[in-house]
């Protein structure tokens, strides 16, 4: 049953949301960030079909040759074409990091809704657990968990998913606390709606903006963490052309002047995380005022 007032409120909200969407798409930081991210997403999807060389093909006669017109970014220790590997290297990290972020967003949102809505003992206990998780750096939690569980992509997904979830939960909890006292929640309670319904159908749609901002920021950190874990050998495994992994196998050579084996992978990681961060910044600056 929808009264006229409700319909009017709904239209105003839709208009506001659409205006915000236009402003986000129109902000410079968002456009630049989105363009960079889109480039790497396209590389991740189509890269392997378009590259001039097979990113896995060895060519020992041509190993460690500097950039040339044939090999734009040179070749690595095994003679593999660095340009093709950088383009193809987008795939694994752009699969794992978004999946891990999705896990943390789902778990974190559910956790935050429960903490904020019920409050009291539930909130106290979960808050202390969250504090404990946040007291150790993610890389160290990951090292510990991956040593115990063995290194695998699934383990990496869950370690990042569960260490980031508390951070998202904290943001969601804060938003729920301000929503909880509003009239529409009291009305729903008076209608004797179930707690689950109130949390997920009434409150959740109203706190989407902070969740979107926090999730985009987390995506940047997920890429950061996956790249770091791959660099120290606990993440993506050979023979993947992943950027962090390539840097880890080649950085021993940089003292000898073979800069092209690491510099392009480094720039790829830097551009991707900065791109995601610029998108987050664009969204945040619009939604915050």
């Amino acid at each position, binding site marked *: 049953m929808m009264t006229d007032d409700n319909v009017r409120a709904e239209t105003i909200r839709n208009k506001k949301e659409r205006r915000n969407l236009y402003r986000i798409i129109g902000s410079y930081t968002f456009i630049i960030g989105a363009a960079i991210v889109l480039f790497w997403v396209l590389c991740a999807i189509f890269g392997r079909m378009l590259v001039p060389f097979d990113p896995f093909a060895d060519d020992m006669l041509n190993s460690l040759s500097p950039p040339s017109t044939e090999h734009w970014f040179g070749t690595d220790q095994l003679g593999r074409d660095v340009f093709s590997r950088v383009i193809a290297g987008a795939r694994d990290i752009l699969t794992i990091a978004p999946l891990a972020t999705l896990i943390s967003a789902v778990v974190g949102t559910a956790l935050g809704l429960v903490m904020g809505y019920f409050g009291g003992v539930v909130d106290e206990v979960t808050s202390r657990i969250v504090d404990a998780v946040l007291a150790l750096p993610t890389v160290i939690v990951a090292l510990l968990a991956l040593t115990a569980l063995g290194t695998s992509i699934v383990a990496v997904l869950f370690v990042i998913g569960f260490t980031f979830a508390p951070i998202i939960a904290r943001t969601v909890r804060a938003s729920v606390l301000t929503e909880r006292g509003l009239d529409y929640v009291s009305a729903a309670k008076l209608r004797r709606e179930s707690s689950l319904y109130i949390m997920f159908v009434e409150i959740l749609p109203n706190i989407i903006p902070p969740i979107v901002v926090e999730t985009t920021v987390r995506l940047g950190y997920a890429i950061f963490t996956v790249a770091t874990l791959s660099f120290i050998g606990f993440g993506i495994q050979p023979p993947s052309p992943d950027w962090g992994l390539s840097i880890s196998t080649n950085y021993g050579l*940089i003292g000898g002047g073979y800069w092209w084996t690491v510099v392009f992978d480094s720039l790829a990681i830097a551009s991707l995380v900065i791109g995601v961060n610029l998108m987050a910044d664009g969204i945040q600056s619009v939604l915050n005022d």
Partner: protein
Amino acid sequence: MLPGNVGRAMLGPFADQRAVDLLNHEMGTDRPYLVQYGDWISGFLAGDLGLSYAYRAPVSEFLATALLNSLKLSLVAFLMVVPLGILVGVIAALQRDRAIDRVISVVGLSASIVPEFVSGIILILIFGVSLRWFPISATWPTGAGFFTQIYYLILPSVPLVLILFGYIARMTRAGMIEALDAEYTRTAILKGLSYPQVIWRHVLRNALLPTISVIATQTVYLIGGLVVIEILFHYQGIGSLIFTAAQKRDFPMLQAGVMVVGALFVATTLLADLIYAALNPRIRLGSQ
């Protein structure tokens, strides 16, 4: 306490089962988990961290040197990043909403998200390999003096500085803006104090309080960054100790290293609270 068969993990999948059993018995890892835990926690409380599986020597010896080395590295990083972050934050606040403020915010944010090993590699290539201004390894020759040690630590601390300075600048900016808008600042200006005097004595003192707690919470991220930096620059610190222990499945070393990191976090948080209380007369406890 980690799950899994320790002897099997150390000797590998092809080792003879008898050898695995013998090793487990020698190290006491065939006893019930609860007994092992009781043994470990009572040892830990008495200051005995156990023997390293990999080196067959007390963990505490390795831990002490590693901790000292990491402390030196983080100190150099902090001495660079705290003044820089605060200075940049103050500039951003005084230029609020102008182009320079926006540039500082975007650059700080971008710098804080680039992984340490990426910025580290680029710094090594530019300043180590190409210009040859700094050594590409952080380990100084034995017997090196104070200034030589600092010289070796400058390049490794820059990636940590890049990660942290954006946060510190952002917090300083927020604190500054709050203080600039406050009534007492208006009063100070109206009573005829010079602008630098107002900023220095009234605004900064209040603005820097929240920054102190941020600096303390950032130590956690700093230690996470140490793992990568110490591997990249071949430096024997707590980060590379934890990493090597994880690689060799040296559980006593790994546990001790992680415990120390957790303890450091608690200690720095406490220290920050104490400094905060000392600087802020409103929450000074105990005295009248």
